[in-house]
């Protein structure tokens, strides 16, 4: 039961992240298992917009030193970043 709840929460979190990403770059499908940086789907200003969106959506302040491309390559890496902030 606890596992199901945790999986549901993770799935909701992923959907929220994909929604924010799709608002920033509507031309890409962020549900695909791609490296967003290597594929050129996100640039440095997109990452800034994404961080501002995540800060607002989850009422957190992502640490400035965590704002580097390797933390934004995939949905999983973004989830890990949010986990660090207790989301």
């Amino acid at each position: 039961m606890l596992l199901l709840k945790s999986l549901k929460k993770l799935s909701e979190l992923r959907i929220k992240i994909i929604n924010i990403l799709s608002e920033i770059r509507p031309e890409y499908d962020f549900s695909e298992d791609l490296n967003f940086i290597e594929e050129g789907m996100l640039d440095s200003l997109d990452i800034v917009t994404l961080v501002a969106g995540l800060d607002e959506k989850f009422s957190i302040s992502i640490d400035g030193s965590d704002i580097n491309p390797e933390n934004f390559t995939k949905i999983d890496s973004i989830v890990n970043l949010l986990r660090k902030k207790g989301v």
Partner: protein
Amino acid sequence: MNLKFKNKKITGICVILPENRETFEENIKNYNFTESQSLKLKNIMGYGVHRIADLSCCVSDLSKYGMEYLIKRGIIKRQEIDALILITQSPDYFMPPTSNVIQGLLNLKEDMICLDINQGCAGYIVGLINSFMLLEQEEINKVLLINADILSHKLSRKDRNSYPLIGDAVSITILENENAYNSEIFANIKMDGTKSDALMIPAGGFRLKSSPETAVLEEDSSGNFRAKDHLVMKGDIIFNFVQTKIPPLIDSLLTFARLKKEEIDYYMFHQPNKFMLQKLADKMNISYEKMPNNVVENFGNASSVSIPTAIAFNLGQKLLNNAYKICLSGFGVGLTWASMVLNIGNLSICKIIEYKGEKK
């Protein structure tokens, strides 16, 4: 590297802005992004109005105007100026030094030192350090530090990464010895040339000369268009550099100065954009009131002029009759990062003026 100075002070700050203003909104059509994407970025980064000099306007024009303004009002006298340091990345010419050109335009005395230094976002601190070192000499009692950049002329209007945030400006800071003013000034500075390509203008120097080929606009992976003659910035590297290097730099400076964070009245930092400064303030646990981030939205980021602009815009009149302990920090091109803590106050001038062009 830690540095310490005694019995020296800033006695005046004057910022000179070109009259022409451009808004972010009027340039949105130039960017290869939707309006809503651009407007979202405007709110986050604090884009607003920036000052853009006419194509015919050079650093020496704005500097001459500012110097004459100060001379006419008796704030400085020609004969008193023992050294003129110009910090710029946009000189009038490769040769001669633009500081010599300014000396000539103003008929300053021969018995003085003119010095051009190529520095950018950390250039205010670099300029202050050099000015204080010159003031150690017995025959040097007054130094004028001119920070000046007209980098808009080296930007692509189709580059959303840089065009909306850059502004043109000049500042003149007056520095003097003061025997009765027995306070210490602490500074530190670091450099990392291995990342010198993170912020650069690739063509136009001797390594890659300007040519019809270097003027051709090319699209980058993000949809920005720029030529090799234009300024290019690796935003992610610069952002991470600032967020990782500046907090320990300031901690180290305050330890060196034996000061606590809360003993500093204001943190006047280089103004790259609102978002970067807010993240820096959050990380350093400093309020946004103590660390203003409003220069980009009102004037644009004019490289080494952004710190004196932040001081004049946010404190201005207050610095004529009061003194504050202020921590300065500049960071960027080079890469270079530096900070300084000093008392600033009881100034003869601390204001922003507008250059309306030469009367024909």
